[in-house]
């Protein structure tokens, strides 16, 4: 069975990891540059080719119109949801898009799952280059507080990238898995995960049983639109205002100048984690230079409200787990933003203990995803993860109220059954509206889906349709229905309120899969050709060695034939054929290689005393 990788699809950076079979430890896979971080940035060339990662990030400054970052903020959301973000992020939204947002990149429009798929495909390529074989299955992490639509969008992105997403794992839970291996701790653990665009808090119980270790999530909470990005936005707004006051220079938040400033401010933010002050010198188009001194204290006062916003979810998660801060034995910090001293201090203060920061906060989620991938791959193992659904599932009832059928923090998979009947004679359909959220009115909750149950004509109150709502181990809703009078099972076509329909996905897939296979084959062919050239050159060189003279005539003919066959295959694109011919040439030159080896050894040994050997 093919290998399963773990992927952290982050707001700022994405990573891919696997379990090293030698050490049994999770490890992040580096990309071509040697770094394990793939910036979650996508850019499109005028000729339509897609650029992902560091090269795309550099183009944020030179070609912001053709480049997009932080696309995770758009996953599973509708146009009405993101009005606030639009003031801060340079997303160019297709004005005709409704429930599924489409953004413009160059002269084309893409949905958020399509753009995320480009990032996933890049990571898939990294892994394939690393293993030298195709990778088609993955565990992908999501913020614990992601709702159904956001999870479905992530799964869709995987599908579009040619990856079967075997499991969506919550990011803080993944981090706990990575730390669990590392620390072998027991008891209650809190994971505080402050990433680029999302904040999560999860409370877990680590239990040893005879069968192995269980990681049971007790509660989770968070904010899917609160992250390090918000700190950058605050800094940017602050400096923007200062520049306007002092130099009368105004610029659009979408301009290249704004991107340049943002980059500088992120550097300042990082500096302030290490030192007490930092200075910004920013050249303006009018030739002036804007100078601003930042003291850590002032910076902390500026970002304090953001840090405070994380504490509400923290308190709620503990209350839901029925625990006091002092009962938490270990606290784990995850996400790049937790390098900020103020955040570390706030967490330490609240729990009254020093948080764990041993693992690289950028890598820990991907490492945990690899651990979960390994658990799934082996089927039976000595670890088990029991996660929860972050939001209550409800059904709209009479008067726009919501009846909760699966409460938040229920262990998943979880289900609920509701029986429906008709209100008038010969009614042929019952409308059902499924929602997610904690508020009491439907209009304040997140709409997941609406559908109509078909009912055979009968007197009012006679039909009995049992509807089963099931949240699977990925936190994604499935709906099934049964007519309890006839026993007839029926599947329900659920059109998601904020998502891409199945037919739409199929169409996108048809477009993308062709590319994917072509991509993989092409890359494999390039690699095989390079290898063929190396071995052909080596064979040619070997013939000049005096030892080659001792080959038999038949051996020599064999080698010549294999060389000709390999040369012929290299002109084509069939990487499997090239590899086979390489193997054949290797077979043919086995004796030649031995001869060369012996001569090399005897040359090396000549002139040495026996005792030295």
């Amino acid at each position, binding site marked *: *069975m093919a290998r399963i990788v773990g992927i952290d699809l982050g707001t700022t950076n994405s990573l891919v990891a696997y379990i090293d079979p030698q050490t049994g430890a999770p490890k992040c896979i580096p990309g071509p540059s040697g770094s394990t971080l793939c910036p979650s940035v996508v850019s499109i060339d005028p000729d339509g080719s897609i650029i992902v990662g560091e090269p795309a990030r550099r183009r944020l400054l030179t070609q912001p119109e053709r480049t997009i970052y932080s696309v995770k903020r758009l996953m599973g959301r509708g146009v009405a949801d993101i009005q606030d973000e639009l003031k801060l992020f340079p997303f160019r939204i297709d004005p005709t898009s409704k429930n599924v947002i489409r953004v413009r990149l160059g002269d084309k429009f893409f949905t958020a799952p399509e753009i995320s798929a480009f990032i996933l495909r890049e990571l898939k390529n990294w892994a394939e280059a690393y293993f030298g074989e195709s990778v088609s299955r993955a565990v992908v992490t999501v913020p614990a507080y992601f709702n159904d639509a956001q999870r479905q969008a992530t799964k869709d992105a995987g599908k579009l990238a040619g990856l079967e997403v*075997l*499991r969506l794992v919550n990011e803080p839970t993944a981090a706990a898995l990575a730390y669990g291996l590392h620390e072998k701790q027991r008891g209650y653990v809190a994971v505080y995960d402050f990433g680029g665009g999302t904040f999560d808090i999860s409370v877990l119980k680590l*239990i040893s*049983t005879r*069968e*192995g270790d*269980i990681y*049971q999530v007790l509660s989770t909470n968070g904010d899917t639109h609160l992250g390090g990005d918000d700190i950058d936005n605050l800094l940017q707004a602050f400096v923007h205002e200062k520049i306007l006051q002092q130099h009368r220079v105004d610029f659009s938040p979408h301009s290249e100048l704004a991107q340049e400033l943002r980059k500088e401010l992120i550097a300042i933010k990082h500096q302030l984690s290490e030192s007490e002050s930092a200075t910004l010198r920013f050249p303006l188009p009018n030739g002036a230079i804007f100078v601003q001194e930042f003291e850590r204290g002032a910076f902390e006062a500026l970002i304090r409200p953001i840090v405070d916003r994380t504490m509400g979810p923290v308190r709620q998660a503990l209350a839901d787990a029925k625990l006091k801060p002092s009962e938490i034995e270990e606290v784990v910090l995850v996400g790049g933003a937790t390098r900020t001293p103020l955040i570390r201090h706030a967490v330490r203060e609240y729990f009254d203990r020093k948080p764990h920061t041993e693992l690289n906060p950028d890598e820990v989620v991907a490492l945990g995803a690899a651990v979960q991938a390994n*658990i*799934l*791959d082996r*089927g*039976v193992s000595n670890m*088990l*993860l*029991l996660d929860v659904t972050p939001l209550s599932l409800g059904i709209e009832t009479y008067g726009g109220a919501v009846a909760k059928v699966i*409460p938040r923090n*229920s*262990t*998943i*998979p*979880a*289900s*609920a059954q509701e*029986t429906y009947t008709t209100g008038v004679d010969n009614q042929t359909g019952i409308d059902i509206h499924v929602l997610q959220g904690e508020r009491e009115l439907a209009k304040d909750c997140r709409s997941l889906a609406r559908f109509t149950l078909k009912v055979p004509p009968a007197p009012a109150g006679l039909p009995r349709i049992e509807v089963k709502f*099931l*949240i*699977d*181990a990925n936190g994604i809703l499935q709906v099934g229905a049964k007519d309890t009078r006839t026993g007839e099972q029926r599947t329900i076509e659920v059109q998601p309120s904020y998502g891409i329909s199945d037919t739409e996905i199929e169409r996108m897939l048809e477009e993308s899969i062709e590319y994917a296979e072509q991509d993989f084959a092409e890359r494999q062919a390039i690699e095989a050709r390079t290898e063929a050239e190396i071995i052909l050159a080596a064979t040619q060189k070997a013939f000049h060695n005096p030892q080659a003279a001792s080959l038999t005539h038949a051996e020599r003919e064999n080698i010549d034939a294999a060389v000709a066959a390999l040369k012929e295959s290299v002109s084509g694109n069939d990487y499997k054929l090239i590899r086979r011919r390489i193997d054949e040439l290797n077979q043919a030159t086995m004796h030649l290689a031995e001869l060369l080896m012996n001569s090399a050894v005897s040359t090396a040994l000549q002139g040495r005393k026996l005792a030295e050997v």
Partner: protein
Amino acid sequence: MLFGLPRKLWIEMSALEKKFLQLSWKLHPDKFVNASAEEQELSLKRSSELNDAYRVLRDPVARVEYLLELEGMRKEGEHKQQAPPELLEEVFELNESLDELREAKASGGDLASLKTRLESAEKSFQVKLGEVDARLQETARQWDAAIDADASDTDRKGIMARLNELLNRRSYIRNLVTNVQKEVL
């Protein structure tokens, strides 16, 4: 019957947890990733049933509701929301204070004294909630004793009627408390 428990209301929580974890090892979908589609489907069904059952059984109030539903004494959606007679006066006062608070919020009046009044009302209802919970526990013990003694149907029905009434009262007071908490926040 996943847990194989008798229809009693007192459950030893650590034994329940142990059983839940044991069954989780066997049923969880993570254990069936490379299995057939049928097995995966079955694991999803069985593990969701396990989690649903555990969610109900570990919550003492949900457990009583579940028992009454099993025994056909409580039907979904039929929960009475009437004020218990002896609470009528206090509920009336509470609702008045809530109205005043809403008005004051709208017109920018004096909130502080209203809030204090509501908070003390909330405390009083919290105490009542505690009393209901104590009576619920006591009645649950009577139920278990009735099962052990193999009591008559009439006796059992009597206890269940009392449990049902206590549940209604509890959910009524709980709603009051939640409403107050929402307005005071």
